[in-house]
């Protein structure tokens, strides 16, 4: 009896792998029990279900995205710290090669797909409908689907750690090392199927925000009057829509190789491993812009708001966004210049890659000149935005150096490359989402995050970031390649790696301080009663904080760029009470109903995915059938909207001091 339990434990839960797994198991069980216990003790189950799990409100969905992203930041960050602990000194054997391979794979995958993406999408959800004067996104129900698909995709990916083993072929998952022959376990299946599930949600998000932005803007808000963050989200949505289907296909093809014996990427029967690299980067390169462009949008908003000045060169900013979007689809080969596709191919893709520097450069200079003749206020949000400029510049310019194919032969897969993409993704995306978090926090919760603690977090994180990644450029030029689980002494790599590890600990500390800031703010809230704590410029600041369910009691009329700034600073008439709502214009509002179905369908997807991962078709196929039933039931649903009465709107607005 005990023996067979232990056998099952070894097979599915890897109990034979030692204390790290046992600790993780214990932590997961304890945390889950803790959450369940707390919810029961506080009698919050119904609240959780009614207010959050079934919600279709874009603001709440946005908050859930950000909470999930924080959790994933923690997980991916732990992976990062484990990597750095292993590499701190030469000849370290704290981890075995097997474990190290799993850790860097999950670190990369989680950080890109389950941290950066949801954080970005969370900010999109919170800000975009408010910025364009809409009551919700175009398809609120689909929005909830997107979130839960992402959530359960992420959950599926994460449980691989304790059930069956994590993928270990790198986040790029190159064939044939990720193929059925060299990687026969379930780890790689987890990668393929959880990304597939989350990816479906992402495509839906892209379509949703594209339609929202193109079709649901307040009257008067022409495309060329949209806030720059909204513009960046529009362009990002376009990239998502046209890049993610490629990922869908690519993952499916490797899944066919692994589960059904196809030969796309195998070496026998005419398969071409290089085709994986080709397809993966057709998606992978645009993906980089998916996570960076909304960050650019945040910087545009933040720099303009805290310089108390219009964005410099609005039109050029828009044009460069569009140019980046188009170019992002034409540069993918620079990820594999060293695969020998020929001098003409390499030359073309060197050139198209370098071209991206032009629109990006335009944006950098426009941000700098937004500050010109402004009045710069150093809030925490602004500090993140400002730190972005020099740090991202280093990442971007080393990117141009990497774009030169023959030079890339010396950088490729070395720590020079690792340093480059961390400079781009952390100084770009992570600084961007942190800046956005401090900026929109008051709109999400009606209180400002503590600025003093926030600044501490910023300085610790930013300095440690440079300590971690600057030495990597050098160590890369010294010949250290990525994904080495250990390295010998005597090559001069040791001191650099030690500095990097200390820096990584500092970044961890910075993250902890930021979480402390959030906890501190919840305990000692500094209420924002104005709805406009930063002297904002765009429509989200014209309504109370947090925004009421219907966002706008009366849909505003937009007269130019920075709509709310114009309302606050009217040119002709004397300034009127801009915040007041015109009572005579209030009408009952149609709002979508909550629905439990997106949650249930996503659970079914999770179950189906789990079944396919283990090739338990008795589980996978019924799971898919439940998904199908859910979709058909949705099709037969006709009453999915309710009204908010005039009286209720008036009550809410009076409580917020608007009437």
């Amino acid at each position, binding site marked *: 009896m005990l023996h067979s339990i232990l056998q099952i434990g070894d097979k599915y839960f890897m109990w034979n792998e030692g204390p790290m797994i046992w600790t993780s198991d214990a932590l997961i069980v304890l945390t889950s029990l803790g959450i369940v216990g707390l919810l029961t003790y506080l009698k919050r189950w119904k609240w959780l279900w009614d207010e959050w799990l079934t919600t279709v409100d874009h603001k709440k969905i946005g908050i859930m995205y950000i909470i999930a992203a924080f959790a994933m930041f923690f997980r991916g960050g732990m992976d990062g710290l484990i990597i750095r602990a292993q590499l701190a000194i030469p000849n370290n054997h704290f981890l075995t090669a097997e474990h190290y391979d799993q850790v860097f794979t999950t670190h990369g995958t989680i950080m890109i797909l389950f941290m950066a993406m949801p954080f970005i999408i969370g900010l999109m959800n919170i800000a975009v409908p408010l910025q364009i004067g809409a009551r919700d996104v175009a398809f609120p129900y689909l929005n909830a689907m997107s979130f839960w698909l992402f959530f359960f995709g992420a959950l599926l990916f994460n449980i691989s750690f304790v059930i069956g083993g994590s993928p270990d072929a790198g986040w790029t998952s190159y064939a044939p090392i990720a193929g059925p022959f060299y990687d026969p376990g379930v780890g790689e299946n987890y990668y393929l199927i959880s990304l597939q599930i989350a990816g479906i949600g992402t495509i839906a998000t892209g379509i949703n925000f*594209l339609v929202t932005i*193109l*079709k649901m803007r307040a009257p008067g808000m022409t495309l060329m009057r949209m806030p720059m963050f909204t513009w960046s989200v529009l362009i990002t949505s*376009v990239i998502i*829509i*046209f890049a993610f289907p*490629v990922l869908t296909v690519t993952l499916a093809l490797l899944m066919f190789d692994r589960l059904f014996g196809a030969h796309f990427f195998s070496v026998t029967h005419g398969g*071409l491993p*290089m*085709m994986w690299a*080709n*397809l993966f980067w*057709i998606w992978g390169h645009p993906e980089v812009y998916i996570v960076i462009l909304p960050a650019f949008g945040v910087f545009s908003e933040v720099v303009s708001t805290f310089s108390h000045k219009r964005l410099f060169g609005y039109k050029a900013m828009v044009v460069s966004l569009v140019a980046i979007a188009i170019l992002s*689809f*034409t540069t*993918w*080969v620079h990820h594999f210049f060293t695969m*020998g*596709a*020929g001098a003409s*191919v390499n030359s073309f893709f060197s050139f198209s890659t370098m071209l991206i520097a032009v629109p990006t450069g335009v944006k950098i200079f426009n941000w700098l000149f937004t500050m010109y003749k402004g009045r710069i206020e150093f809030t925490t949000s602004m500090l993140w935005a400002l730190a972005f400029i020099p740090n991202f510049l280093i990442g971007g310019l080393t990117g141009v150096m990497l774009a030169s194919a023959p030079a890339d032969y010396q950088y490729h897969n070395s720590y020079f490359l690792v340093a480059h993409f961390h400079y781009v993704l952390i100084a770009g995306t992570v600084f961007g989402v942190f800046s956005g978090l401090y900026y929109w926090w008051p709109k999400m919760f009606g209180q400002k995050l503590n600025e003093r603690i926030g600044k501490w977090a910023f300085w610790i994180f930013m300095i440690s970031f440079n300590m971690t990644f600057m030495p990597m450029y050098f160590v890369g030029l010294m010949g250290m390649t990525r994904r080495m689980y250990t390295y010998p002494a005597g090559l001069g790599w040791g001191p650099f790696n030690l500095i990097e590890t200390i820096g990584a600990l500092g970044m961890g500390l910075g993250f902890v301080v930021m979480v402390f800031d959030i906890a501190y703010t919840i305990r000692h809230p500094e209420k924002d009663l104005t709805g406009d704590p930063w002297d904002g410029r765009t429509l989200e600041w014209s309504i109370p904080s947090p925004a009421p369910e219907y966002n706008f009691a009366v849909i505003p009329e937009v007269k130019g760029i920075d709509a709310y700034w114009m309302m606050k600073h009217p040119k002709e008439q004397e300034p009127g009470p801009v915040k007041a709502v015109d009572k005579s214009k209030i009408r009952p509002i149609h709002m979508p109903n909550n629905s439990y179905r997106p949650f249930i369908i996503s659970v079914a997807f999770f179950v189906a995915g789990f079944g396919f991962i283990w090739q338990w078709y008795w589980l996978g196929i019924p799971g898919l059938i439940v998904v199908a039933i859910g979709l058909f039931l949705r099709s037969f649903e006709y009453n999915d909207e309710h009204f908010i009465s005039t009286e209720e709107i008036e009550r809410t607005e009076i409580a917020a001091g608007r009437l």
Partner: protein
Amino acid sequence: MSSQPSHEGFPWKHVIGFVLSILLTVMALWLVFSLQLPVSTEIVSILVLAVFQVLIQLLLFMHLTERDGPAYHVISLIFGAFIAFTIVGGSIWIMAFRSMVS
């Protein structure tokens, strides 16, 4: 702004579209199996016929011209076609080599 379809009478648009689509298919078959053309010419001409087929579906069956506001859906289809071309052309170009050493 929109092409309001007639609510009466005979569905001319659809019938014409159907006849054309059958004709184009027959032409493609004939081109490939009855004419002795060089392979590249054959392929280029049947691809051109396919593009016409697509236009028939889009314009006569799918009411592509109906819209409210700017024709964003047409723009997205065109962009989709551009990406499709990039992916197909790019992949073939990149993967064309099988070996650098002959």
